[in-house]
Structures are given as C-alpha cells and as structure tokens.
C-alpha cells in the first residue's frame, strides 16, 4: 500500500484498502471557513442537534477578514454563535489568517491525519505527510453530523524532482512548470506525491507552496514523505501523538514522472488558465497596475522576506500598486519582528489584514477592467480577482516583488543579485 492508503485504511478501521474502493473514514480535523454558512444549515437539515466531536471541528474566518458588507458580517455572526452553542473552541476569528496557514501555525496539522476543509487548497497539508482534501459545505456538514466521510481511495502520481534549483527559481516556479507541462486536469481524483533529492533543499514553506498548487492540476490530495525537516517542524509545533506512514517498497504508482529542475527558469502562468505557463522572459516588459503578494500559496514569512530583500531602500514603481497580505497573524508578527513590514511600507506597499483578501476577488485589492496584475496566488481565471476583463499573471513571490519595483514584469534573478 501507499502511505496515503495506509492513512485511509487506519481511518476506516480496516487492515487494507485499494485504489477505487469507496471507504468511510474517521476525520481527525474538519475546518469550515466563512464562505460556508451553508455548512450549518446542512447540519440542521440532516437532523443534527449536537456536533459530533466538537474538538475535531475548527471555524476559521479568513475570506471576509474583516467583514466588508452587512451580509458578510451577518454570516460571521451566525458562525460565532454556532461555535458558542456547540462548544467548538477552535474558532479563529478575523485577523488570524488564511485557514491553511493558521492550522499549521497552531499545531493542528501532523503526519498521518485525515484533514478535510471547505477549501480546495487543503492539498497543502500533504507537505506534512497528512491526507488533506477539500470539500463543499454539505460534505463538511456530514462530518459534523457523523464524524466521518466517504472517500474513493485515490491512485497516486509520483513526481521525482532531481537536480539543483537555480538562483531566482522557487517552488512556485517548479510547480507552475509542471502544471504547464501536464495540464489543469492531469491529476483529477488522484494524489500527487513529490519525492527526490530536491526535496531535501526545500523548506516547509516551499513544500507547502508545492503541495498547495497540486489543486490546480485537479489533485485530490498531495503527499511528501515526512523527513527530518518535517519532524523538526513538528517538534516545534505539535503536541498530539502522531504516526508516520511509509509506502511499501512494492507499491506501484499509476504514473512515475521525473523532472530535472536545474534547467527551469522563473515561470509565469498567463491569463486565463493556470496551465497557460511560459518562462517569465516571454512576458518581460509588460506594464503592471498591481502586484499582489499573499495567500495560502505565496504569503508566508519567507515570501515576505524575499520581497523585503528585493525592495530594501527602494520604492515600488509609481504606476504599480503593491498589495501585501501576510498569510496569518503569526506570519505578520514574524515579518514585523524581522523588519520586513517596515521595509515594505517604506517602499510603498499596502499591507492588508491576514486572510484571503483579493486572491478570490472579494475585497482588499480588487482589479478593474483591463488592469494587469502579477500575483503570488494560485488562480488566474477570468474575474478571479475582480473584473473579468482584468489579466492575472501568477508567479513566485520574488517575481512579484521585483516586478512591483520595476512597474513591469521582470525576471527576479538580477534583483536578488544587487541586494
């Protein structure tokens, strides 16, 4: 069995499972965000009175942080009320940050767990050897009502990363390159596992970026076998007992792929599909109205640190707005302590409350018709960050920061050399 199959088998109370089977699994943690009031309604529609295992449920108010309209405020009010009534103590209110970062910061994510959230980017947690997958409101309500959920045991696509990462290239460039090569639907219903020597050089933050973006290939979950980096991080964050599962040596993924990252240039995903990827050189010189640094993909302390390094003592170009959204309160505090926020504010950046903000076009940095934006986020569908006539280019945090400085799309590598 694959490690993911072992995780699902254990959660289903079975000795073994195999790809294609439908199994009912215990869910270790289920997260609801503030877009999904329907979760509560569906829970009552199912005859629910008391939430099953309130200690395994968390509400994180991240998409409307803080509320911009009366309706948003009403929805959040009802969620807070529900948490109080049901004894759900893991309520992270506005200002806490994007759910995926908050759960990691709070030590709620660990190897071998089954983690389900009402957010498609729950694949992020494969970075820790967890089975993390996104669902809609009604599926989440099933977990609140019964403590479990049905899954089809997925096949695994194994991607080996070899070589040495060039200067100016980050996990975001690697995953964009792979999505560009394979397509936005390549991994539908499947798990994407990353392995190979490159992983050793990837920080927890970079692993999260890599796994987060597997959603954009259609993946159900991602997986990185926990190693020293993972376990060191767990030691700092996690108190709960956990189990690390290992795939059997005779397990055969449905597909084995390998990439040499040594030759990868910084990449961009061009409008209006994430798999429309090309080297950044193809777009160099394109004028920018906005540069956006944030989200569960590209808003961590390391990402903000790269931007501060590029912009230290400099000014963002006058034609470009630079919006920075720390992924969580913890990220915000770390960035303050390290002087990154001071540097970025002096350079002309606008700092937004930790949360999802304009990544999904709800508030705090919305694009007008015809505007062009470079973003460290995960989607560039028409209308994703505002007007359907706006254009979104997805790249690494370094590409975003260097382009904000230049007022146009540039390769970040030379900007790292001069600082």
């Amino acid at each position: 069995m694959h490690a993911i199959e072992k995780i699902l088998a254990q959660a289903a109370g079975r000795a073994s499972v195999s790809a294609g089977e439908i199994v009912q699994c215990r869910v270790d943690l289920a997260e609801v965000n503030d877009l999904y009031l329907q979760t509560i309604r569906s829970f009552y529609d199912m005859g629910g009175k008391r939430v099953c295992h309130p200690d395994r449920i968390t509400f994180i108010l991240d998409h409307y942080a803080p509320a911009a309209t009366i309706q948003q405020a009403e929805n959040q009010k009802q969620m807070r009320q529900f948490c109080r009534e049901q004894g759900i103590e893991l309520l992270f209110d506005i200002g806490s940050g994007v759910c995926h970062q908050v759960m990691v910061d709070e030590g709620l994510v660990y190897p071998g767990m089954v983690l389900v959230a009402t957010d498609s980017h729950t694949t992020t947690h494969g970075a820790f050897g967890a089975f993390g997958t996104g669902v809609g409101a009604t599926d989440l309500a099933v977990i609140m009502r019964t403590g479990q959920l049905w899954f089809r045991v997925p096949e695994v696509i194994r991607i080996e990363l070899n070589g040495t990462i060039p200067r100016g290239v980050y996990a975001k460039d690697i995953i964009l390159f792979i999505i560009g090569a394979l397509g936005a639907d390549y991994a539908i219903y499947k798990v994407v596992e990353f392995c190979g020597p490159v992983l050793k050089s990837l920080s927890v933050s970079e692993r999260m970026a890599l796994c987060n973006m597997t959603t954009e290939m259609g993946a159900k979950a991602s997986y990185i076998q926990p190693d020293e980096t993972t376990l060191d991080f767990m030691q700092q964050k996690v108190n709960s007992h956990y189990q690390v599962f290992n795939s059997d040596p005779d397990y055969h993924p449905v597909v084995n792929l390998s990439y040499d990252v040594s030759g990868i240039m910084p990449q961009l995903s061009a409008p209006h599909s994430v798999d429309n990827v090309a080297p950044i050189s193809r777009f160099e010189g394109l004028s920018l109205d906005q540069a956006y640094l944030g989200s569960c993909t590209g808003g961590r302390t390391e990402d903000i640190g790269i931007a501060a390094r590029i912009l230290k003592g400099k000014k963002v170009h006058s034609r470009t707005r630079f919006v920075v959204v720390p992924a969580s309160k913890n990220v915000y505090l770390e960035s303050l302590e390290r002087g990154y926020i001071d540097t970025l504010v002096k350079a002309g950046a606008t700092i937004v409350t930790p949360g999802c903000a304009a990544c999904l076009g709800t508030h705090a940095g919305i694009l007008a018709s015809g505007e062009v934006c470079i973003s460290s986020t995960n989607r560039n569908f028409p209308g994703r960050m505002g007007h359907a006539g706006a254009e979104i280019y997805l790249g690494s945090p370094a590409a975003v920061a260097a382009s904000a400085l230049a007022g146009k799309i540039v390769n970040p590598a030379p900007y790292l050399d001069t600082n």
Partner: protein
Amino acid sequence: MKTVKGRTFVYGHNLDTDQIYPGRYLELTDAVDVGKHAMEGADPDFIRKFKAGDIIAAGRNFGCGSSREQAVFTLKANQVGAILAESFARIFYRNAINLGLPVLICPDVSQKVTNGDTVTIDLATGMVVNESTGQTLQAELLSEYVIKIIESGGIAPLIKKEYANEGSNL
C-alpha cells in the same frame, strides 16, 4: 432512476467555479439570490435563456477551482436537469451529487452535442441520446453509493434518515 430530457447548453474545457459563480457573490445565502448569478462569468445571458430542466454539456474538468458549493447551488436554483461533461473537477462532482444534481462523465460529449440540441439521459444505464442528431453516447455508470445519494434527493435527506435513530454523538 429516472430519465432526464432537455435542451443543451454547451461549454468548453476547464470551466471553473469562478465563472459558474463569481467570488463576489459568495456572501449571498438565499437560493433565489444565489440563482440570479449562475454562469455569470462565462455566459452573462445564461439566466435569461435557460429554462428549468435544460441540460449543461461541457468538455474536460468542469467545475475546476474553488470548493464553493454555491456553484452547484446556483445551478440547482435554476433547475438544471443534469450535467454531462468529459470529466469533472472532484469537489464540484461531490457537491453536485450531495445536492442531488445528476452529473455524468460522458466521453466526447462536447464534440457530439451542439448548443441547443435536445438530449435524453437514462441515469440508470448512462445511455445518452442526442434527439437532434439521432446519435447515441455512453456515459460512465454512476456508482452504487452515488445512485443511493441521488435517489434520496441528496446526502442531507439520506444522512437524516440513516442517523434518525442513532442520536447525534456517534
């Protein structure tokens, strides 16, 4: 399992949930309000042209992107009869089944059905007949568990029934 018959609205590959239901409307919770913005990002005339029972046919990866259940909720509010696609994004697929909206994986459907064609779908056998051309297509069969959910009118009524006598703290 019933038969669904309706006029088709045909779309291409990778039609994402931001186009099916733009993010700026996610705060809406009432079915009537949510229904007003169906397919707004892809086809602003959809609401005006679509009639209850009509069918959506699409290419690969229909419903990719965000986990927003509102993308299904808005189509349900407009009484979409069924969705045929060459493949579905997995969260959209689960959401549709959970809300009792029949979704069938149907190879080549975006090539073999033209906008406005009338099709008949037998949900039990997966047989799809394009009444306008006479052509027949075979959709993948729904799994037993999925059929059970759809026949119950969605997963909420099913869970309500199954857990009626078991209390809440299981």
